[in-house]
């Protein structure tokens, strides 16, 4: 197992080189650059050209990439071209808020969708299943920007239960931890709810199909024939098997946890990574963009690795096949 993991980790290096190189070229191929954005009659194009050469944009792309690579290997991810902040710092300072929202929403979604999906699949074609299905289609078809605004209008404006947006009351910075934590939770409710409504809908459908497929398998019929109790069939025999596809999904979701959601963050003024990443695309903030790409490729690779390991743990057949 350790050999397997170290092999996979070694394979990571050429993959990262390839990904960052391709990303760098695509990024540079996109028209425009951060300096060209100053559209202001009081700005002289000479200044723009001077800054461009200060930043090294006039060098060939390959040289620029090698310079970036050299700096990264020395632990320097560069400075944001917009804010002048170190790229790593710009990312790290947004990580807590991003993780808070994404991890808690993922946990809640999983906790809710498993029972819902199993219930749906098990009670297939009953009014319960139909009801939940209607709800999940509703949830799926509502765009999150609209849903978010509606929730703000209802819960914040009409009912005055929650603040419209933000992360924490700015005047609470000197206050004790529990007050701050409470205030953050209070601000988090509406964005969390918005993410959850969409997420629950999707994953419930996924779990429902999983359970229906598994309940139709021969070994379930065999277990039923042997007189195994229904709850044992569901939670012992079927449950582990619907975990498999979910693990793949979660493995691929790992980078999603840190990448945040632009739309939710934009509407709720949530200080997360989604805003940073999208803005750096539009502003052509290359150092930030490259750092985000590097980080998410590492996470995608690690995510699939973890998923593979979990597979082996849950389904012993997979490692055995690998060995034979």
């Amino acid at each position, binding site marked *: 197992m350790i050999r397997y993991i170290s092999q996979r980790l070694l394979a990571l290096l050429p993959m990262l080189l390839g990904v960052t190189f391709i990303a760098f070229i695509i990024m540079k191929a996109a028209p425009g650059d951060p300096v060209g954005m100053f559209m202001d009659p009081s700005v002289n194009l000479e*200044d723009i050209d001077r*800054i461009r050469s200060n930043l090294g944009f006039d060098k060939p792309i390959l040289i620029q990439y090698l310079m970036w690579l050299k700096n990264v290997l020395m632990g320097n991810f560069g400075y944001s071209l917009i804010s002048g902040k170190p790229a790593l710092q710009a990312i790290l300072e947004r990580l807590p808020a991003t993780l808070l929202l994404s991890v808690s929403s993922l946990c809640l979604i999983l906790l809710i969708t498993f029972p819902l999906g199993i219930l749906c699949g098990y009670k297939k074609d009953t009014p319960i299943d139909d009801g939940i299905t209607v709800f999940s289609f509703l949830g799926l078809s509502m765009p999150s920007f609209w849903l978010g605004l509606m929730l703000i209008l209802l819960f914040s404006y009409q009912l005055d239960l929650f603040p*419209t947006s933000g992360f924490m009351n700015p005047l609470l910075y000197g206050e004790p931890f529990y007050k701050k934590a409470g205030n953050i939770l209070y601000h988090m409710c509406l964005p969390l709810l918005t993410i959850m409504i969409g997420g629950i809908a999707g994953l419930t459908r996924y779990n429902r199909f999983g359970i229906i497929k598994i309940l139709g398998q021969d070994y379930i019929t065999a277990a039923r024939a042997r007189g195994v109790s229904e709850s044992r069939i569901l939670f012992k025999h079927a449950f582990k098997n619907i975990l498999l596809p979910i693990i793949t999904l979660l493995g691929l979701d790992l980078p999603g946890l840190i990448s945040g959601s632009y739309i939710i963050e934009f509407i709720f*003024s949530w200080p997360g990574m989604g805003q940073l990443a999208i803005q750096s695309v539009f502003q052509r903030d290359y150092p930030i963009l490259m750092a985000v790409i590097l980080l998410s490729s590492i996470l995608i690779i690690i995510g699939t690795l973890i998923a593979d390991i979990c597979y082996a743990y849950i389904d012993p057949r997979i490692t055995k096949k690998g060995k034979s």
Partner: protein
Amino acid sequence: MLKFPLRFIGMLIGLMISVVGCSSDLSDNQVLTLRLGAEPSMLNPILSTDSPSSSVNGYVFSGLLKVTPELELEPDLAESYTVSADGLVYLFNLKQNIKWHDGEAFTAHDVKYTYDMILNPSTNTVRRSDYIIDGKAVEFKVLDEYTLQIRMHKPYAPLLNRLTMGIIPEHIFEVTDINTAKENQNPIGTGPYKFKQWETSQFVLLEANEAYYDEPPKIKKIIMKIIPDNNTALISFEKEEILSSGIPGKDFKRIAKNDLFNTYRYYDLAYTYLGLNCKHPLFSNKNVRKALAMSIDKRSIVDGILLGYGKPAHIPTSPEMWTYPKKPFFYDYNKKEALKILAEEGYIFDKEKNILSKDDTPVTFKIITNKGNKDRELAATLIQKNLKEIGIEVSIQLMEWSSFIAIVNEHVDPKKFDAVILGWSLGLDPDAYSLWHSREYPRGFNFVGYSNSDVDDFLVMGRKELDREERKMIYEKMYEEIAMDVPYIFLYYPESLVGLNKIIQGVSPAGPAGLLNPIENIYLIEK
């Protein structure tokens, strides 16, 4: 299985309710809560170009001069200044006993340092050429701790307005690389408010500068919340979480009727236009451009898109500018006349097929504009409709901003576009050399390739002339010349619609200099 999440959710709700009380702190009488539409880039006036940064910098930094609500200049860090008879030397006497927010004394060296940094080629500022006149840099010389001499080799009227630039502290920046200095996130200035805290993507917190050299500000704290979404900001404003907000036209009447708020409207120093590529075979003919201008119903654009909050534009300035003439020149909206002019130029209008053609080729062109600016997108559609009526087929392409700008600014002749919809924000000085001078093509913002030697002369004269009345006459003539030539079809002057919570008092008359200017006069009342 279901028990755990339910209990967890219950706990969450319990926690929330226990902390609901915290949110009322913001109505504190000493806190002015405003909105920023985006994260500021750098809190350094010589490096930043975005408006959120300028909003914060305006409170933290001060310049030699400042802009009054009437858009006049008055001394700020300066006590007084004189201009030599030949207009080449400005002598500034600075206020004494001004302290930086960290307690250090402010002197003329800081002013010189600021301008030297701007002029330093390795500083990544786009302001450098503001202080370079025909290739020669303006000289800043310290005569003594509180006297500064500014010398240039020829008279240059726009310079005075550029002396409103915020002054940065030498003792902080001389030991760092200004482009990446930590102090760009943690600024030290001399302004009415001290920088206190900036939480990324959340807010900037400022505190009153008790040692301010002028009248100290009345409000103790300013929180500038970063709320990117306009809809959220409006709800936030109506919920009184923020005390000031821009109001979309469709909501303006409703907000104006609300007893909680005061509303204001004024013209921005800005205009929106359809720029015609004068090197394009179709638009190289002045009469064709004139006919197009006569075929576009600007009034319907203002009514349809701005819902009446604005007015049709005819010349390249703003109604708020002192150079705006009493009666600007413009071509009347008149389709018949337009078709007549086009016929004289050899264009044949086939009424049945509704096609305008010349030499059997139908007239078509493409308008490009940036995606995401709804007003411009709609304006393009209305123009398309207007021109369809005289048989011209217009296609529209919406582009992402960077790609759009890359096309417009590409250093080629001719440029690769037919027509663009764009807008300009104007400075306080009427100088518009970079937009209209023939030398600013193909490298420069005269990307439509406009060339008129009279306009070139007016631009040069306008820069040299220091007398305001004389300057006004020069620019009036220039505006008329440009309006007659139609390199742009000027579309509209947008209005700013702003709402303030009624607890804000001491507000200036509505104008582009801002309602909360000067901030020292603003105070909050109990409801």
